[in-house]
């Protein structure tokens, strides 16, 4: 009688032991696989629930040359969201009467970074040595569903990569910007 049930009993114990080991070691890995498999589905669901929104904004850029006449500058705009440049105004000062230079083709197609630069060969007496507005960027940002204005604001960063005096010497300068978001998408 005991011999008759010995083999099934041993088999059941073996199955139980291997199952326990498998569950203990593979539980997290199985969850990760499930999460990975579910990720595209969740992305698709999010895409269906809400289409990307467009948010218009203006970025007014100011450079402080700290008392040195500013003859040339270059800065870079980076954003965590794709954007297109609708327009870019000049500073308004006679020394920089023309709009700054930027990659118009890339900016029109959509990008997440932009390089803006300009120079003036005017003499030092005709240049500005105090904080001055150098550019106003009009851009349309593409926001992911669920992103708000705060996230857009936090994702934008400006970096001054070059600034020079009339002699072409690199100078220490500060760059600041003011971001103005349109109240509603498509409306200023």
């Amino acid at each position, binding site marked *: 009688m005991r011999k*008759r049930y010995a083999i099934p009993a041993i088999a059941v114990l073996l199955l139980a032991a291997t199952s326990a080991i498998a569950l203990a070691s593979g539980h997290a890995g199985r969850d990760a696989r499930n999460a990975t498999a579910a990720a595209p589905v969740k992305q698709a669901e999010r895409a269906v629930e809400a289409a990307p929104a467009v948010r218009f904004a203006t970025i007014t850029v100011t450079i402080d040359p700290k008392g040195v006449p500013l003859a040339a500058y270059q800065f870079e705009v980076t954003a965590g969201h794709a954007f297109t440049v609708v327009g870019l105004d000049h500073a308004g000062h006679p020394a920089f009467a023309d709009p700054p230079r930027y990659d118009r083709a890339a900016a029109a197609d959509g990008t997440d970074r932009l390089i803006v*630069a300009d120079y003036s060969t005017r003499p030092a007496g005709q240049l500005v040595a105090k904080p001055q507005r150098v550019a106003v960027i009009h851009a349309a940002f593409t926001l992911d569903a669920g992103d708000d204005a705060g996230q857009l604001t936090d994702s934008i960063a400006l970096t001054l990569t070059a600034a020079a005096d009339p002699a072409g010497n690199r100078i220490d300068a500060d760059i600041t910007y003011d971001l103005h978001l349109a109240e509603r998408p498509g409306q200023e």
Partner: protein
Amino acid sequence: MTHPHDQHDTLPDGLIDALRDFDGPAALPSVEHDDALLAQARAHLAEIAPDITAHAAAADHRRRSRVVLGFVGAGGAVAAAAAVTFAVWFGMDGKAPAYGPTMAEQDQANAISDPSSPTWGGPGETPPPSVARQPGPAVAGDVDGSGTLDILDAFALARAVERDGGTPTRGHDFNGDGRVDRQDADWLADRAVALDRSGGRG
């Protein structure tokens, strides 16, 4: 008084022989004889009590089934255990269990920690001396010799053009029109802000 039978002093010979063989080795029946006798008994039992015969047959069948099922169950359990083990250890898209880093993660960690690895370059990592910035090939359009192409190169060329009045300068005819003028400075400025150029900034 004596009974007439008591008058015999000897036993019959047949009885004497039988008594002599009583303590001798018994003659065992053969296996064939046993089987034949068992079959005959069963046939006789089936005739006189068919219910008892059917019950006995069913009991015998159940006993055999239990034995077979025992072996089948044992084999199935072992197969299931093996299947579960394979599913856990080898069925996770080639990835190791979650309690340790994957091979790719380990390779990446080794690459970052290995200064000689060509894949070095994690964000926020301080470049080791062996891969720190080294003088590279000359950047096209690097007029001011800063090592990068930016707006200051265009500015330097524009100042030179205004100072020299458009005198050709070797190597500064960037637009290839045969002369060095403000258009070459404009060409450099456009290159400085281009997002898709190779080399230099941007």
